[in-house]
């Protein structure tokens, strides 16, 4: 993680506010309950919004630390499960090739 010089919150503060607002909406409650069978947890978005604003206003080191920790935890959560397949280093070689001639002729 970069030090205070040149660092800024990973998302604009408005993005944290929008995520918190979406998380707390009735519609999201319904979606989340339908998918996960429990109510959504929105408190972390609120904390991140507060940290973001604190950074914007006071360049607080604690706010920076808290935001980084929170976002890293989000990234880690997405990497919790091992992938079923191996990722490619480059896209399939034949993606852009023309279709086989016999299909074109049909």
């Amino acid at each position, binding site marked *: 993680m970069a030090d205070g010089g040149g660092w800024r919150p990973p998302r604009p503060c408005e993005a944290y506010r929008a995520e918190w607002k979406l998380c707390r909406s009735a519609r999201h409650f319904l*979606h989340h309950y339908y998918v996960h069978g429990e109510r959504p947890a929105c408190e972390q978005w609120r904390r991140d919004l507060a940290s973001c604003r604190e950074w914007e206003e006071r360049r607080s080191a604690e706010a920076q630390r808290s935001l980084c920790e929170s976002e890293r935890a989000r990234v880690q959560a997405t990497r919790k499960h091992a992938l079923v397949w191996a990722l490619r280093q480059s*896209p399939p070689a034949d993606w852009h090739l023309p279709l086989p001639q016999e299909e074109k002729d049909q």
Partner: protein
Amino acid sequence: MKHSGCAVNKERHFSCEDCNGNVSGGFDASTSQIVLCQNNIRNQSHMNRVVTHELIHAFDHCRAHVNWFTDLRHLACSEVRAANLSGDCSLVNEIFRLHFGLKQHHQTCVRDRAILSILAVRNISKEVAQKAVDEVFESCFNDHEPFGRIPHNKTYARYAHRDFQNRDRYYANI
């Protein structure tokens, strides 16, 4: 898709055809082409969902070594992801199918539709298909690439796109 090196060209990567049965579409990995069944796609909403579903297969083909024809687990994984992320299993769509359920019903739908999709393209028993889905479900249900979340509607899709556009700033500052 473009960011992954597989820019999509409508003329090259899509084909509208008449299909047997009630299949809505498919992804042909051998030709890198999405097939849309013009005789079975009912309306614009259905079309949007089918295109999204098949693009998820195309995206998986682009970013990973998916052994479509030789590894049932790979096929199962992509079908779980497509059912999960395309809107196939939205509450409204399930109600239209007369499948009523709320608490965690989305996951039941994803499992069931993934199994149906596998059975549509593989001559195997339902039990074998179900076993493959069960084995990969935990990993593949929670793989929300490229969205980072399940895009339930346009708002979620917009937020996902915003995060994608912000990715450089994001990873540089965590």
